[in-house]
């Protein structure tokens, strides 16, 4: 695996390999010294064009736990504010010869695009409403730990599917691991044609009792401006996952950040059925495993250190250099 651009391109064996690796890192996490030297001397860049707490912090910590040097760039406050194009930003960061660039971007395909512009391994940390593969992997990891297997399990993904990259990646990953997936939400928030991905679609919570796992999506409050639903109250009345609707044997997941009282009730999210904090913990080890899988098996590119100035020259990008 050269890059992680979408979960679509990772087969079941590939997913299992990352999860097994993540499990071994979970053991490392229980030691006093939680760091391994795998990526010592190598550089990981995180490039975030959208706000993020969980994904950015866990990728950063994952890189540090693997002993990589970390450069963390946020679009706000960087040259992106000055109008620098994605292509130029990537060329600039690539000049540091990073082993990996982890990118989050508000538009679909950004990670795939930059993979053509940089020799670094590219990790998609969310591209528009398209994909969020590391989230899918950590959710599968969380469920595998709890359930042993996803084979034959019924998973309902509930809420704003239309605007959710998590829904898309998780649908693909859950199915690939053998689960049956139902998408549930108001018709205005379920994209036309999504059932062709091989899932059931329903517009009410009737039948939720069949689910082994209920995966609630964040109701993106900013979407209210587009009047996708008449009101949050009406949404909550029809689609909120609360302790009345959630059967005690069912597990509850959520990608965060949670709008308590909208898509889930506070009681449900705080209940022992909720896997939310386990998901966050899984995020760290799964992202360590992703970086490990992409970088550890890959020969380090020659760098200037010890190779003399001529090698440094050769390794530098040629953009703007005289021929």
């Amino acid at each position, binding site marked *: 695996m050269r890059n992680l651009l979408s979960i679509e391109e990772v087969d079941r064996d590939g997913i299992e390999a990352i999860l097994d690796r993540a499990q071994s890192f979970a053991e490392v996490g229980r030691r006093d010294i939680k760091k391994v030297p795998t990526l010592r001397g190598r550089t990981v860049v995180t490039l975030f064009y959208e706000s993020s707490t969980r994904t950015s912090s866990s990728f950063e910590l994952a890189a540090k736990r693997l002993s990589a040097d970390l450069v963390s760039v946020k679009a706000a406050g960087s040259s992106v504010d000055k109008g620098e*194009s*994605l*292509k130029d930003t990537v060329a600039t960061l690539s000049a540091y010869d990073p082993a990996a660039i982890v990118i989050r*971007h508000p*538009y*679909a*395909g*950004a990670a*795939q*695009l930059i993979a053509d512009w940089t020799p670094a391994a590219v990790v998609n940390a969310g*591209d*528009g*409403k*398209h*994909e969020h593969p590391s989230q899918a992997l950590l959710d599968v990891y969380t469920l595998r730990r709890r359930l042993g297997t996803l084979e034959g399990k019924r998973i309902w993904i509930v809420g704003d599917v239309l605007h*959710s*990259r998590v829904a*898309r990646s998780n649908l693909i990953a859950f199915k690939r691991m053998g689960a049956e997936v139902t998408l549930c939400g108001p018709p205005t928030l379920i*994209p*036309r*044609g*999504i059932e*062709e*991905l091989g899932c059931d679609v329903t517009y009410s919570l009737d039948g939720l009792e069949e689910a082994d796992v209920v995966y609630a999506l964040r109701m993106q409050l900013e979407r209210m401006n587009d009047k996708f639903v008449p009101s949050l109250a009406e949404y909550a009345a029809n689609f909120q996952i609360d302790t009345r609707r959630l059967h005690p044997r069912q597990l509850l997941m959520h990608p965060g950040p949670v709008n308590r009282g909208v898509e889930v009730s506070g009681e449900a999210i705080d209940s022992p059925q909720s896997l939310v904090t386990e998901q966050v913990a899984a995020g760290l080890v799964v992202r360590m495993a992703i970086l490990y899988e992409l970088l550890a098996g890959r020969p380090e590119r020659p760098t200037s250190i010890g190779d003399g100035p001529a090698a440094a020259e050769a390794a530098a990008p040629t953009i703007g250099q005289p021929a």
Partner: protein
Amino acid sequence: MSAAINLTDVLDVRAGEPADLVLRRATLLDPVAGIDGVHDLVIRDGRIAELAPPGEADATDVEEVDAEGLHAFPAFFDPHVHLRTPGQEHKEDVETGTRSAAAGGYCGIIAMANTAPPVDDASAVTALREQARAQASVPVGFAATVTVGMKGEELTEMVELRDAGAVAFTDDGLPIASARIMRRALQYQKLAGLNIALHEQDPDLSAGGVMHEGAVSAALGLGGWPSVAESTMIARDCALAAYEDARIHVQHLSAVESIDVVRAARAAGVRISAEASPHHLCLTDEEVRSLDPSRFKMNPPLRHETDRQALIAALRDGTIECIATDHAPHHADEKEVPFEQAAFGVTGLETAFAALHTDLVMPGVIDLGLLVERLSGGAAPFDLPRPTLAPGSEANVALCDLAAEWTVGEDGYESRSSNSWCEGKTLTGRVLVTVAGGQIAYRLRSFSLGVAQ
């Protein structure tokens, strides 16, 4: 309106030597004129002089081309081209755009008016016509906008624009959102004449859409531009055109729903013509899975296979009477960005014939005669003479090698931009020589013409 006899009576082109040429033993095909067979095609002083029996034409003092095994068609006419002039000459200009047309076998084009600023006053039309007389390889007509600044709020001075030489009205690039303004334009057509070409898209219903709404947009998480945002606008304008007894031309049909509306309107007597683009006839939204905006982001978007099949059927039955490329050049900077941020549009002049020949004619989906007829069908809706091989007419000829294989983009483009939807494809069929408006407009570099004896 009195019908023009020659394209160059109405359109503007750089003045040059009239062609004197014999295409020896060419296979001629002009279904509209009923011409089909091997002849010596004789062009003298820029006109089709004679279709002589093979090997018998007198080629004294003229260039002679051994055209044995090659096909000569009436050259093509594209009623939908973006020359990007004035204001966006980094994408295209009159010189490069018409060179691109010549390389595609076109003998005439109509340039759209959504430039920067838009062509909405007579002085702009006059200036463009002057530029064409200095730079254009093939005859060009310039469309003017329907509304001032393409804002959809007030009509342009349509009579003055017509008198300055505009050949059509269109706000292409944008729909005319207001039914009230649309109706006024159709009323005013009784005075100003000229057909009105319509980019049909309900801007509210398609808001945020960057590709066809369907299973692929759902899978990619891209904003959907639903088919009904096109068909409902066409239905509105058909109703208005019927009410005002006006004439409309619907641009770049993309959806089965739209075809149903056009077919029904025509059956009911509405004066409507329609075009389809090569990319909509050859590709579907499945291509967008590549997330490559340079080749696959355009407006209207690539649609479902059922839409593509309906377009082909409509091409066959004449509901769509012409193929128009919607040649829309963009600079690389506007395409080397994520799909949603990229500009809409692909180039198409240089590849239209070859792509349709490869994708539709060779597999037997449509026959060659139909393709030729539709590629030259874009003149009639704008009261311009249809290119023909009939003796006596202005020479407008595309000489093609149907067996030639070439890889698009390998040798660059005549267009200033490279956002071709065919980039990298290997196509079969190539234009070797184009005669446009009686002049030799293009010769493929690797194809050498014989010299006069």
